[in-house]
């Protein structure tokens, strides 16, 4: 009898608070949303089960699918700009900051990180003012360097608005990859770098051959954070361009598309069921993206133990 192991209640007790809170505020609403997308409102204002017909509307109806693919395409571009601009600049800044010869590193670090803690509302408003063709300082500053002809009302042009907003978002969030990479660079032991110097690898080649391979897992984490953040983005576009994501839906991303559909806009009444359908599609896209990363990339990254 004494061989029977006791049930270890303490594990359940210690896990309970986190599990309960997470279930209540994340898992239940998530399944609520998935559930909502399978219903529709009848003309008599009752809920009726419609199976996957909302998804058929979203992907089959030319209007809905047009708006959806437009939003997804814009979202993909938004993500590409972040991957091509934000993350390389973040890594570059981190590499510069970790250089032992740099003076006032703490100041630069703080200054670059500060926009990250600003509210979207402030960032959107400030950049709208900076870029304003009427009151903004951007036309004046370009004029000073003789490039006034390059100025355009970027936020009002279909061709530039999304890229401009993506760059504003990059400006705001470049501090996050910088800090994560900076932390990763600091964990590289001095012995490794000294050994490299003994072998004659210094400067740039030291970064490419020694440091970068060692921080690749962090770069992977940053990529996936950027991916999830970008495909959930909403605030900056909403603040700068409104729920209609003008000009002509050229800045419409999945978040603003969801908002318009779910809550309605101006004379358009909200449609919670189609909204939930879009939310479910977003969830699926993010899930697929994260899975590709987890199973396709992360398992192949080499890790080094010191």
């Amino acid at each position, binding site marked *: 009898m004494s061989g029977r192991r006791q049930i270890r209640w303490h594990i359940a007790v210690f896990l309970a608070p986190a599990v309960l809170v997470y279930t209540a505020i994340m898992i239940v609403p998530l399944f609520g949303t998935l559930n909502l997308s399978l219903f529709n409102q009848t003309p008599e204002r009752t809920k009726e089960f419609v199976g996957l017909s909302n998804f058929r509307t979203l992907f089959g109806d030319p*209007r809905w699918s047009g708006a959806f693919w437009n939003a997804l395409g814009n979202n993909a571009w938004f993500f590409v700009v972040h991957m091509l601009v934000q993350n390389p600049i973040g890594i570059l800044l981190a590499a510069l900051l970790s250089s032992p010869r740099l003076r006032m590193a703490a100041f630069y670090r703080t200054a670059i990180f500060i926009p990250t803690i600003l509210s979207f509302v402030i960032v959107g408003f400030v950049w709208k003012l900076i870029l*304003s063709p009427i009151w903004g300082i951007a036309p004046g500053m370009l004029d000073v360097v003789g490039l006034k002809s390059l100025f355009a009302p970027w936020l*009002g042009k279909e061709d530039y608005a999304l890229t401009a907003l993506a760059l504003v978002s990059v400006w705001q969030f470049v501090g996050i990859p910088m800090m994560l990479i900076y932390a990763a660079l600091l964990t590289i032991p001095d012995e490794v770098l000294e050994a490299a110097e003994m072998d004659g690898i210094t400067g740039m080649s030291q970064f490419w051959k020694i440091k970068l391979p060692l921080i690749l897992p962090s770069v992977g984490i940053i990529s996936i954070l950027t991916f999830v953040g970008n495909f959930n983005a909403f605030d900056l576009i909403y603040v700068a361009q*409104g729920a*209609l994501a*003008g*000009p*002509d839906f050229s800045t419409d991303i999945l978040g603003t598309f969801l908002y318009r559909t779910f*809550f309605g806009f101006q004379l358009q009444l909200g449609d919670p069921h189609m909204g939930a359908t879009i939310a479910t599609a977003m969830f699926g896209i993010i899930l697929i993206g994260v899975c590709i990363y987890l199973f396709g990339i992360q398992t192949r990254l080499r890790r080094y133990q010191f």
Partner: protein
Amino acid sequence: MTTRTLRIALLTSTLLAGAAQAQDVTLTIESWRNDDLTIWQDTIIPAFEAQNPGIKVVFAPSAPAEYNAVLNSKLDAGSAGDLITCRPFDASLELYNKGKLADLTPLAAMANFSPVAKSAWQTDDGAATFCVPMASVIHGFIYNADAFAQLGIEVPRTEAEFFAALDKIKADGTYIPMAMGTNDQWEAATMGYNNIGPNYWKGEEGRLALIKGEQKLTDPQWVAPFTQLAKWKDYLGDGFEAQTYPDSQNLFTLGRAAIYPAGSWEISGFNAQAQFKMGAFPPPVAAEGDTCYISDHTDIALGLNAASPNAEQAKVFLEWVGSPEFATLYANALPGFFSLNSTPVEMADPLAQEFVSWRDKCQSTIRSTYQILSRGTPNLENETWNASANVIKGTETPEAAAERLQAGLASWYAPQQ
């Protein structure tokens, strides 16, 4: 000890008796007009309370953008006020159909309003009216009178004169001819398309024909306003594509622009901001002597919460809101929000007088997209914002924009199929 208990008991009973004697009923008004809070508190409510002892009124507004959502949840929870400020058309109709708003058809004050004034708060067949109309807003153009005098420009009455004036302002170069941007999109539709449009589709005639399915958005009279808008591009300020609504307001009130496509709700704000003399003119007609049409849009009304425990007193208040006395008070306190009452109202503000004088010489209509036509998906009003902005920017031709709107409307609206 006993004396003290006795004393407290006596005091309590006096207090209770006092409360019972007063029997005041407090009515709460739900509204999105938080800008008007002081006007209600200082002018309108005291006037009512003086005549109706025993009824107290509290004006409890919420933020405009949140109003619909806040009101719906309050009504569902049973915590909404007795009186509900009504948005025009479907938002309020939805509340009435759900049984949240009471039927006010039997109210005596309803006789004071014309059918057009009531149309925004009626069932589609016009059988039941559920809100007492309060005010409408009129569209037109506000101009900088000093600039016009300086450049020797007459107030334009026809399209030709309108564009001649714009050309003259542009050639002079001191002023931006017209202050409008397309960044926020709605000005292009509301102060553009629906401002000048009624002259082409002949106001109510065209609007009702569109609802009945007898006219299409691709008909010449519906494409013409877009053709006009397309010409505006050359007269807007540099970088108008990124110019927002507050930008346009500021450009005009700072005296940098000469003409502002307007709604009358701007009047009180402009009076406070602008340092120059202002005037207003209605949308120009195609040829001298044509009948003019104006958008006199029914915008705000007051309804009764069907679940209100004080329905009797609330109806007393609503009767008063429908009276000429309230109309005079309201229209003068808020120049630019014009009374819908059939009795003419004397207003002191010259700009407001100018706007309202158009009612006598022009035919009134409401915005074409508001009644019934914005009930489905895609939403015609929201599509019109986008189309009007595109046309002004020149990224979509008038014909293509009209084609797209018609296709969208026909996709769900049976009479247009």
